[in-house]
């Protein structure tokens, strides 16, 4: 029987109180954003934010709890923008959104950082065993796409180096049940024909660094069919994450029917970019409908997730979306 798991890949909006206190502590300019060696006062603020995120998720009853990534000023580019071998350039547009992040310019070898592992250690302490932890990282393909290489000098070498770096980070993570690798660029800016395997190899490098279930989460529409097939076969993912909100859902259904699927799937069911809060029953119906489209008899797990990160939303709506996901999983029990 298929297990239904309500989960999110994190990147939550800061609570309104923290938006104020942190902007007072840090400032509004580019140079004021997080560098990874923040002051004790800032560390304490983020600790409170993290505790609130954990409570939000436990209150909602999610099946996996994430750290929430409140510190990720640069969204999924964060693991690079706080890295010692990276200089931050100008403010650039984050995908097709009215959001911006600092361009990470990689200027030296990407050695071990441990920044994300430290966040996850702190989250583990807060969760206190009440729910399994899910870790979040950018996937290597998207992170390479979002960054600027000023050191490795070759696209393939750069992508491989980023994959090795991320794998090193994962090895330092505390125990986690699931690892979300966020790969929106696979949809928005897919690898050129013939270069799919370089991307899937990079993802597999990171996926192989953990025993946890690995979800390769895509966003902003359907995957190109050829790339989809490569990802199912080669990325080392336990689950591909598919956006069922944005773009053409029929294309995604076609991919699954034509090329099969990973042993598990993550379905982006609630809209991370709209304040309209979905009914749990509607979400549950969508899960059953989608599962009925999959040719293989019974697969391991369906993750019920938002289609994007949730930082696009105001705080009250982000919380409502967590509740919807958890309630939808309950409807399906």
């Amino acid at each position, binding site marked *: 029987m298929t297990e239904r798991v309500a989960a999110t890949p994190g990147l939550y*909006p*800061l609570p*309104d109180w923290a*938006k104020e206190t*942190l*902007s007072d502590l*840090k*400032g*509004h*300019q*580019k140079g*004021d*954003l997080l560098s990874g060696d923040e002051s004790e006062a800032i560390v304490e603020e983020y600790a409170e934010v993290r505790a609130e995120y954990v409570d939000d998720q436990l209150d909602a009853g999610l099946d996996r709890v994430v750290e929430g990534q409140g510190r990720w*000023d640069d969204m999924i580019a964060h693991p690079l923008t706080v890295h010692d071998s990276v200089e931050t350039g100008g*403010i650039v*547009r*984050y995908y097709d959104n*009215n*959001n*911006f*992040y600092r361009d990470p310019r990689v200027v030296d070898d990407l050695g071990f950082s441990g920044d994300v592992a430290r966040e996850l250690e702190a989250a583990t302490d807060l969760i206190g065993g009440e729910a399994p932890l899910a870790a979040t990282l950018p996937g290597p393909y998207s992170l390479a796409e979002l960054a600027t290489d000023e050191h490795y000098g070759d696209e393939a070498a750069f992508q491989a180096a980023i994959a090795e770096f991320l794998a090193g980070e994962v090895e330092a993570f505390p125990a986690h049940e699931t690892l979300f690798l966020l790969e929106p660029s696979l949809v928005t800016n897919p690898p050129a024909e013939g270069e799919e395997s370089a991307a899937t190899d990079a993802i597999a490098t990171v996926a192989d660094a953990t025993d946890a279930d690995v979800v390769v989460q895509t966003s902003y529409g359907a995957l190109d069919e050829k790339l989809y097939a490569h990802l199912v076969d080669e990325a080392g993912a336990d689950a591909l994450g598919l956006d069922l909100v944005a773009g053409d859902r029929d294309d995604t259904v076609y991919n699954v029917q034509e090329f099969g699927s990973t042993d598990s799937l993550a379905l982006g069911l609630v809209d991370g*970019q*709209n*304040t*309209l809060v979905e009914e749990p029953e509607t979400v549950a119906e969508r899960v059953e409908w989608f599962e009925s489209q999959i040719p293989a008899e019974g697969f391991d797990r369906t993750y019920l997730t938002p289609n994007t990160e949730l*930082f*696009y*939303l*105001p*705080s*009250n*709506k982000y919380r409502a979306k967590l509740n919807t996901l958890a309630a939808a999983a309950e409807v399906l029990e």
Partner: protein
Amino acid sequence: MVRNPSANREQFRPNDHPNDAFLLTTVVGSYPKPKWLNRADELVDDPDSKFDASDLEEAHDDACRLITHEHERAGLDTVVDGEMRRNEMVEFFADRIDGYEFNGPVKVWGHNYFDKPSVVEEVEYDEPWLVDEFEFTSNVAERPVKVPITGPYTLGFWAFNEAYPSTEELVYDLADLVNEEVEKLVEAGARYIQIDEPALATTPEDHAIVGEALERIVSGIDEEVRIGLHVCYGDYSRIYPEINDYPIDEFDVELCNGDFEQIPTFTDPEFEPDLALGVVDAHTAEVEPVEEIKENIRQGLRVVPPEKLTISPDCGLKLLPRDIAYGKTENMVTAVREVEAEIDSGEIDVENPLDD
């Protein structure tokens, strides 16, 4: 198809205009708020303070009077109140339109947030949005007053759409409301309206939606009313020559910021509306010298003849220190008047404006 800009331009020429040539000077709209006004905005929310809503209204009136006069002192032909009453360009209007609700701030980048509203039901017109503001400014101003309005495309796409099957449909409903507001402003005496569509700069592929929205906005608006469209920095080649089909009198662009590299975009095919050209940078805190601004004005003459050229700063100046904003505006007007005199004397050849 463009409106008829030559039918409404001359009304803005001041009686004492010193030159034959007339390059209409204006501003995009926003201007730095006096520090005391920001303080007053905060004070009214402080429960321990006696400063109340009517005090704030008085403060807003004072600030509008001050900035309108500051614009006149700089010598502008048409003035704005600097948008002293407005907080943010979407929020201000969403607050006045039925159908919007606010849930709290969302991140733009770093610790910069925007109170992005949600459209939760069909949008409807309730009270006038800007008529009081226009009447006040018009009463204190000696020069004609321009009214900037955030356009329906931006009001639609910079909100969460919970209520409409597509955001395009929301935009058209909003355009009908803007039309209603423009009618009321015209009734109150307004003759110069500027529609601001910064959202088009990031999604130029939607130019047809903006075109359709503009058709609705200008429906029934007499040709003596000047309708401008302002679109901030972007790749204008993505919306040109399509904008030649827009029903506007004037297209206002931000080109100074990019050293006028995009000017050739507008030279072929022929530019049809009047060109409102940004000639001072809204993002640098140094006042450009008059000579430099004069060179920038000549760039506009590569696109249109003097009788179709309007001169403004690149964008709203609200993020600059106030003395810098004033310095830029004053130098801009000085430069325009000198260029006009040089056109009159034949020193500038309008056919070859970059030649000395």
